[in-house]
């Protein structure tokens, strides 16, 4: 983690550039490949998670301040988010429910 008072915002610029690259990679995977739908979804989903983590660390200084507790908080939030989103979709598309 860069010092909080570096002479050039290398962390931010690097984060920005990689985010743009990841964004274009996502578009590329969707528009310019012939992979099956599920595969593409796993790829772009992973790219999204990587970009989110990148921005959490590089832009938002997640590790500063109460770093450890902030990280536990974000991890638990993501756990709940996955349970809520994936859980809902699973429950709603199983059995007789799904029409």
């Amino acid at each position, binding site marked *: 983690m860069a010092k909080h008072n570096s002479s050039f915002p290398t962390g931010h610029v690097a984060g920005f550039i990689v985010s743009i690259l990841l964004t274009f990679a996502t578009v590329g995977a969707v528009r310019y490949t012939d992979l099956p739908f599920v595969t593409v979804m796993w790829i772009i989903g992973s790219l999204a998670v990587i970009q989110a983590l990148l921005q959490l660390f590089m832009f938002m200084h997640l590790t500063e301040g*109460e770093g450890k*507790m902030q990280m536990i908080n974000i991890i*638990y*939030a993501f*756990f*709940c988010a996955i*349970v*809520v989103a994936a*859980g*809902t979709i*699973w*429950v*709603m598309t*199983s*059995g*007789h*429910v799904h029409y």
Partner: protein
Amino acid sequence: MDIKWSEILVKGDPLILGSQIGIALTMIGALVLITYLKKWRYLWDEWITTVDHKRIGIMYIIVAVLMFFRGGIDGLMMKTQTAAPDMKFLDAQHYDEVFTTHGVIMILFMAMPALIGLMNVIIPLQIGARDVAFPQLNALSFWLTFAGAMLFNISFVVGGSPDAGWTSYFPLAGKEFTPGVGNNYYAIALQIAGAGTLMTGINFVVTILKMRTKGMTLMKMPMFTWTALLTNVLIIFAFPILTVALALMTFDRMFGTHFFTVSGGGNAMLWNNLFWLWGHPEVYIVVLPAFGMFSEIISTFARKTLYGYKSMIISIVGIAILSFVVWVHHFYTMGSGPVVNSVFSITTMLIAVPTGVKIFNWLFTMRKGRIQFTTAMLWSLAFIPTFTIGGVTGVMLAMAAADYQYHNTLFLVAHFHYVLIPGVVYAVFAGFYYWWPKMFGHALNERLGKWNFWLFNIGFNLTFMPMFFLGLKGAVRRSYTFSAESGFGPLFALSAVGSLILAAGFAVLVYNIYWSARYADRNISTDPWDARTLEWHTASPVQFYNFAQLPEVKTLDAFWHMKKKDKDALVLKEDELEEIHMPSNSGLPFIMCVIFGAAGFFMVFEWIPLAAIAAAFIFVGLLVRSFDYDEGYHVKVDDVKKIERAWRGEK
């Protein structure tokens, strides 16, 4: 949708007319009385604008007791209606409104405020802090809860109550099947109160993690503080789900969207799913602080350190995590199929295990202790077997295949009352008897307390035990009557008699509160139970700054250790006193309550332009807060010395 002016006041029912007149008279009477006693200034300065966690906690508790009364009347009305076959006391529409308001009020406006109130009063004291992390936000939390409660409560006289159950399932809760404003009250009032609760969650997590006094590591925190921590973590991650669910309900009812309405491709089950994703953590939100309180009380009155501290913590962390992965057990029968149902059966059965661990720990705490049968302890003792009945019937319900038989029968209703009442209500009552001296400087009368306990406990069991058997015989929930041929009559009648005894028990509590306020001895110790935790190392009622010097903690049960092994730590070192920094009072939280209340009311009646204007004022309020640079004030050392000498002199 146009709501006509002439339809706003509910008409045509003598009971409701009586209530409307009663409410109007009470409100006018209250305003007149306060003016006559010249108490407006006092009320404004000391209570309405307070940011003191102890005062805020007491206001929450007052709301909870009043709401217990209202919710209890709802319960009694249901029991009256079902006391005999084909009773004509309440028609189906009114019965539906009564069980809906009963459920919402008991869970969201009685249990939550009571527990949040007790947490507010006690937690900062238990961790040796002077207030919570964000005192003004804390006040806002209370006032938003109050706004939500008031909005919900006027529904039965202004516009009509919600009537689709406390779970408000679609399609019944939608505009097509329930036009009118009743279910709008549900969507809006709960949304406002929920916002307040979410803020409480954030406040207490930061407080507990960051404001513990010197030496109090996580593993030296009292058990009530641990459960409060996990409870507030659950609040933070569960309440946003309710926020979204209620917002989607609002959109469907008022703006023509199709989230849950079948026309347009919506799915009613999506509501169930989102509601219970919140709803299941919610029941753990109410039960965890209760478990924490029992831990404190059992340990104090068995005169032993709590058994199995580490396993208690692992259990509550386990409960907190697991509570997010069991929600489908509330709707096994809706058709997600065997795979989903089996997975959730397993997780649901799993979550019973940590609670079982806790029960054994409480029993081991009592083993070889010297038990004092105070009222608080009686509630705790009764909790253990009665809650266990609720718990094991829960495991029965957890099995999805079996649940197809029990679901939505009175068996289910008996189960959840057997976990909620012994689990939460007994704990709240125990907490009242235990901490009343600390909050008010006098204790609740023990003799009246025992009457309260026995009547309530016997009444409770007599009311709800028959309902297990009624459910197994086929009696369904939310049904306003039953036929004589069904054979349900005798058990329903027994249950109704039980409810009268239960009500008598509650009446004794209310009488106890009144009697003790008038007659109880004020000259009591600041540590009447010879307790173990830091909140008892203060005056009774607690001095406004809590601690003249922040205590230094060396062990678990810090206060006990100081009394028995480190008496020097109890002495005030006057020459080391410093000025104490305190936050200023603020009228903004109360003003926001009025704004939210008005905006909510306009939304309920779908007067959107008015609601938008009122909502704009919310943002004005936020801006006022942003530009507020008030840094609080300082309490002079001499004033601190005076207060400290006064209460310590009594020792």
